[in-house]
């Protein structure tokens, strides 16, 4: 039996890769591609009459496959289906790190899931509060309620927009430049940052359109996303490279952190760098950049 370490609410999640929980060949070692998180899917990828089989596969995989440092999230079926309650029991008993709530539209949806997760943790003797949650926002209502959704539970580490369903409900198609989801992405980002949780963009569906994919990833980073869903391992590397801090950003962050440390030791109350006054949030952001650079494997310094 594999005993997974306690999930961390805040960790690196540049890529979350979807895998069909029903395919033994896929889930046995999905971690080798280096995605930060994998999402084992009980929802869309699994046919209606195989939901039961997928849960047995998922449970045995969670119990027997060593996913190492890779986070293991499970996408459960929607709250409007007959499947989600057993999904939750299976996921919690199996010891996954977290649950992705599909089609989340309100704080109540989160509370409903949380209630069942807690019940399952008690039933299976899992530490209470261990199982994390994230919300997939797939409708205008979900986006408008983003803030109440991500603040509904302490277990909530972030939210993601799910482009396929969202675009349908908005009567739009995927567009070059992303104009069709610009306000939704922006609104979700605002809600996530206000709540202090992470925010993830939707997957890019056209595997052969490398240019379109890369443009979207670059835009994601510029907008402030923490990561992106991916559907094929070949998408991972570019996302990781794009989300890693640049050498220039790292150098500046390093300078800020070093001068803060020096000045704090000498008891100075007002911080200055290069002769200019600098506010505390700058230092916090600099520490975040250094931590991200370390996690991305691009930091070679000694901080």
């Amino acid at each position: 039996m594999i005993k997974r370490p306690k999930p961390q609410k805040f960790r690196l999640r540049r890529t979350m890769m979807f895998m069909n929980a029903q395919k033994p060949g896929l889930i046995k070692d999905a971690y080798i591609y280096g995605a930060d998180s994998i999402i084992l899917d009980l929802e869309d990828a699994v046919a209606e009459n195989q939901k039961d089989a997928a849960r047995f596969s998922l449970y045995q995989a969670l119990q027997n496959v060593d996913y190492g440092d890779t986070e293991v999230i499970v996408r459960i079926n929607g709250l409007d289906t007959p499947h989600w309650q057993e999904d939750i029991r299976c996921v919690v008993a199996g010891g996954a790190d977290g649950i992705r709530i599909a089609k989340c539209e309100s704080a109540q949806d989160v509370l409903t899931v949380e209630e069942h997760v807690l019940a399952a943790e008690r039933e299976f003797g899992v530490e209470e509060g261990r199982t994390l949650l994230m919300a997939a926002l797939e409708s205008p209502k979900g986006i408008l309620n983003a803030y109440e959704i991500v603040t509904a539970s302490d277990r909530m580490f972030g939210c993601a927009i799910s482009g396929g369903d969202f675009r349908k409900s908005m009567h739009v198609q995927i567009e070059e430049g992303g104009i069709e989801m610009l306000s939704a992405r922006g609104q979700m980002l605002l809600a996530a940052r206000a709540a202090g949780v992470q925010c993830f963009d939707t997957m890019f569906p056209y595997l052969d359109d490398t240019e379109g994919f890369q443009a979207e990833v670059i835009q994601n980073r510029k907008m402030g996303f923490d990561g992106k869903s991916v559907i094929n391992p070949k998408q991972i590397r570019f996302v990781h490279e794009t989300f890693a801090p640049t050498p220039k950003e790292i150098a500046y962050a390093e300078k800020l952190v070093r001068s803060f440390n020096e000045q704090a030791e000498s008891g100075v109350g007002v911080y200055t760098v290069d002769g200019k006054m600098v506010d505390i949030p700058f230092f916090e952001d600099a520490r975040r950049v250094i931590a991200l650079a370390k996690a991305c494997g691009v930091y070679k310094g000694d901080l």
Partner: protein
Amino acid sequence: MKNAVNREIPEELLKDGKEVYQGKYYMDGKYIKRDSPKTRRYVKPQSSKLCSSIRKACERCGAHDGMTVSFHSEFREGDYVASMVAKVLVEEMGLKDITIAATSLGNAQDLIADYIEQGKVIGIQTSGVRGRIGEVISAGKLATPAIIRSHGGRPRAVEAGEVHIDIAFLAASTSDCWGNAKGVGGKNNCGSMGFAIHDSHYADHTVIITDTLVDFPNRPSSISAENVDCVCVVDSIGDATKIATKEARVTENPRELMMAEHAAEVIAATPYFTDGFSFQTGAGGPSLAVNRFIEKRMVEKGIKMSFALGGVTSAVCQLLDKGLVGAILDTQDFDMGAIKHLAEHPKHHEISMSEYANPANKGAYVNQLDFVVLSALEIDVDFNVNVITGSDGILRGAPGGHPDTAAGSKCCIIVTPLTRGRMATVCDEVVTVTTPGDCVDILVTDYGIAVNPLRNDLAQCLDAAGIEHVTIEWLRDKAYSLVGTPDALEWEDQVVAVVEARDGTLLDVVRKIRPLQLDG
């Protein structure tokens, strides 16, 4: 008697000067007296060498019981000629005790499996055995053990007289009535005829089988009329569209692409990756995909490849068209693009199997190779590679040029997934050794990279480039932790195949497998 790769070779095979394998350079510098064909004189002028049927050609060449015939496998899975000729020999002419010496045998020759079962074909000498032929040999139905040789080992054995070909039946895409023949310009083109050229020099008789007769002289030609006895015209010699098998296609499999990318990183980290380097890839998906990733690294570094060797795909032809490759030396084409490219591009040269890989000539091209990227069915902790038997002990593979390029190159990289289904590719001991471990330098898997301890210099290069690597034992342990430690296969005493090292010494034997019977 145990050989240098720790394999037990039965004493009864060590006769007529046969020795056990004693290391990759054991035969270096030794002399050999070459065999020569017994050639019929054609003094009296004739108007043409055309024969109205394969049977007529066989009769003119003195086909008889107990003879050895040869075929080339340039049409791979699309070959019609080997089965067509075997049918004439066995069913029309009623011949028996035939030995078939082919450059490879596979699904296209399933008919020959029937003749093995009927006892008409009693000997098989080949570089590859797939499909039903592999199954019937593994089941012990061939009267004498099959002899498995590498692409370089085959011309060596022919020159040494260890296999003397009575009649070579050579499929050719075009021929004139005099027997000048080649693999391009016809209805069904295979491109390079590198596998056939050497046979035409050493066989007592050569029969060209074509479906496109062209005006004399069909020059420049791969096979010269001076070595040809007869020419037969048939409806179709093969289906060229089947040349590109599944193994030879460009992969979209993310696991294979990831491994290929890592292999390219490894190549770029070695000191051989400089302007003028030379390169070969095998036909497996992940090794072929290395072409895609090597291009980027060449452009970044501003270097070019001097020559690409061996089996050729469109991928390497495109590199040449972009000016990144000086020349292609081609023994075999793996897809239609490569076949077309050979016909059209002056820097794309056909070479014979002997020029390519023969370890008993005055220096084969494999000895000039910097890199070769190959696949494996299994690789063990001594870096010995198996490309002939499945983990279940059944013959289903082809050494081809694997042992030759591994031995000749400065850096041999094996690219393979750690497991295939429930089979561990990295294992304690391979079922059969086809390429000795001292020829293999680096292993790239989906779970990590391992460097042969004999090549500490390469390990240091990877360290310097920041490429992580592990021991091969670690990879084996990981494989077994995933799939479970397999039970040892159980064998009968009967030897069904002998694996010759490229220098003619005995590398390993394959015995008849005893299938597991579960009771209850």
